[in-house]
């Protein structure tokens, strides 16, 4: 399912670009370099964990612009920003927008490689997360509407009897539907189900006590 990690480099300065390619290759990563943001956006990316080493100041579409555009797609990538002359407001903006690291040229090799490794790890996790989420979504999609109603109330912590009361059905029926949806969702326990619901962002329903809902981490 996943290949070797790839490091993408976008820098308009060919000297910097090529030196980055040589350096990152030298530590065993696969590197793909691009002279501009649009060139990168146009390229097909392999199905593998990766990260983006991005120069902040680029002609045309800048590094920060590219970060914003990437965030709007499914193909989000952890970004390591490079800058010739970093200023604090710009690095704050970049970090807030989820940058892994903000390095000022000339950077220390270790800082860059650590950042790359950490970014790839993060991307690997994110990709895993995205994969699991897609699984969950598929399972959730297989539920009948009634099963989803029951699920929302289980997650909200209602008892079968209460659910039956709310939905205007019998406790037996709820019990039966509960068994179906637990199986479909591949949840071993109510705790698993709550965690799944939370990842899917399904709001709890009913008047029972609600549980704190974790937000889906953005990548």
């Amino acid at each position: 399912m996943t290949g070797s990690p790839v490091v993408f480099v976008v820098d308009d300065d060919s000297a910097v670009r090529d030196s980055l390619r040589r350096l990152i290759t030298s530590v065993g990563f696969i590197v793909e370099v691009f002279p501009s943001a649009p060139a990168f956006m146009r390229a097909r990316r392999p199905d593998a964990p990766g990260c983006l080493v991005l120069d902040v100041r680029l002609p045309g579409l800048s590094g920060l612009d590219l970060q914003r555009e990437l965030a709007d797609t499914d193909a989000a990538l952890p970004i390591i920003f490079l800058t010739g002359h970093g200023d604090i407001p710009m690095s704050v903006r970049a970090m807030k927008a989820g940058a892994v690291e903000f390095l000022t040229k000339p950077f220390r090799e270790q800082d860059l490689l650590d950042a790359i490794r950490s970014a790839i790890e993060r991307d690997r996790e994110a990709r895993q997360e995205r994969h699991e989420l897609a699984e969950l979504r598929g399972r959730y999609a297989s539920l009948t509407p009634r099963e989803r109603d029951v699920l929302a109330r289980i997650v909200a912590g209602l008892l079968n009897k209460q659910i039956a009361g709310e939905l205007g059905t019998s406790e037996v029926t709820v019990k039966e539907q509960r068994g179906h949806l637990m199986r479909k969702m591949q949840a071993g326990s109510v705790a698993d189900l709550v965690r799944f619901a939370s990842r899917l962002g399904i709001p709890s329903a009913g008047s029972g006590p609600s549980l704190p809902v974790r937000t889906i981490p953005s990548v």
Partner: protein
Amino acid sequence: MAVDLDAGTHGLRTALRDLVALSAIPAAWVGREPSAIAAGLADVLVGSLHLDFAFVRLCDPDGGAAVEVTAGNAWKTFPEWLQHHLAGAGQSLRKEVIPDVGVGVEPCRGIFLPIGVNAEGGLVAAACDRTDFPTEIDQLLLSVAANHAATAFQNARLIYERKRAEGELRQARDELELKVAERTAELRRSEAYLAEAQRLTHTGSWAWNISTGQKIHASEEYARLFGFDPEQGMPSFEAFRQRIHPEDRARAGEILDRAIRERTDFEWDFRAVLPNGTLKYIHAVAHPVLNASGDLVEFVGTNVDVTERKQAEAQLRESEQRYRYIFESTGVSIWEEDFSQVKAAIDELQSKGVRDFREYLAAHPDFVQQAISMVRIVDVNDVTVKLFAAERKNDLLVSLHKVFVPETQEVFAAELIALAEGQRSFAAETFLQTLKGERLTVLFTVTFPPRPARFDSVLATVTDITERKRTEESLRQSQAELAHVTRVTTLGELTASIAHEINQPLAAIVADANASLNWLAAAHPDLDVVREALAAIVQDGHRAADVIQRLRQLASKTEPHKARLDVNNLIRDVAPLVRTAVLSHRVSLRMDLASALPPVHGDRVQLQQVLINLVMNGIEAMASVGDRPPELVIRSRPYGGDQVLVAVQDTGVGIDPNTIDQLFSAFFTTKPGGLGMGLSISRSIIDAHGGRLWATPNPTHGATFHFALPGIR
């Protein structure tokens, strides 16, 4: 005897009758022509005395032509005889009785009778066939008749002479009258000329009789001088006197009295006041006229209106004073110099065919030396005395050599060339020295008179600009320092850009070095990659060094150093320095550079500073504009013949027409944090390069700043 007596009485009576008849004749001859008298006498002799033939010759005692007349029927022989006789007798003619003149049948007797002594009055000859001819009575009657005729002839002559004299006299009188008429006309003409001349020269003439105290002559112009109309008749002596200026009137009397006393010529100037208040200046000259006994009779004189001359003199005096005042009081040192000898020397060289004086002076430096000695210093003003530290004026009126230093000779040579080429003026900056040896930097100007003119008074001015030069020098230094400060300030603004420019190659170097280390640490190092990385390191090292070199130039405080520059290279060198500023403001920067531009002579750092400044201004002008893309174009073009134009065009807010004049003033700024020195310094830099910096609004948006620099051919 009785018969004889009777006959004698009868003869006497007849003789008396004839005598009476003869006596009446002269009265009839009065006023007759001599020829008529002679003819009348001949007729009387033939008719009254009953002679057969008469010949009358009347001589003019004054040597006039004689008149000869014959009457009666004579024998042919008598006139022949008479002619013969007259021819033979010559001047000694006597009374003669010729017994028989005829050679014919009838006897004929004749008489020859001179009139006056030696026949001065003429002669009478008569012939008759009477045998007693000529009787004594005949001779007496002939003699009386002849004398009467001679007298009448004499009278006739006198009358004739008188008439002739009268005629001549009449003619002479007529001629005289004609001459008088001619002379009168001439006199009138010359009087008219005189009057005209008097009018033109404003000269009036007069004559004044001493004994009567009256003006006996005053010309029309004389009257006009005093404001009288001559048509209205000549005013009185007193009327004239009243028009003399009251202050001059008493003096008029004194001068006249003394002239009368000493009988001398006199001359004086006085003023006349006319009724309309006009003041006239009159110059009078007079001469005494003495009679035969040496008594003073009258004065004749002329009065000339010299008002205009007086005014001109006053103006001239004023002008002279003004000139003197300027000469003395002006703050400029003025030298009045006599260039006559120099001019003559130049003229002589030119007449010998010297045309190119530049060439000539280069070949004959000694001529410059001689020419300096030839200049005679006529006068200098007080400023000059002070400026050249002289104790008195005369110390300077010696020779130009005293104030010249070696450098001055070059300028003097140029002045000689200007003079030789007929230029009207010459100015140059040069050095001179004071009499105390202190060196002066001066501005020297000289104005030559137009040709042909005398060169004995040429004015040269010397302005001491030593202090100004010092000030200029220090101003130049201050400006250079200020330019440096603004440059460093600009560099501060460019820090981000500069850091980027340096950090880029540094980052590449570090990355490549690390990559190389990594590869070398591998079990099987890929040396090709290492080589590639090392080559890149070398390249990037140079790149960083280049950037730093450029920065050091910009930040350095070295003296401006001008060299031959390519404007396009200048623009290309600036581009990386402003790249970050351009990028961070999302400005699109375009370069539109013309090829084949002439190089310029300039200081690279300063010109880059100007360009950076214009670019930064353009970027800032576009920062607040949101409705159109910020676009900056740097353009280079050939301009106005041999100049090079650089233009920086933006799409910013443009120039406020109210402040366009102040754009280039120091401390004028539209930026909140701006110092307002950028454009001011930029302009002074461009000025110092002999160029021009200006701004124009664009047709649509924004502004364009241009500078033009002289190109090197």
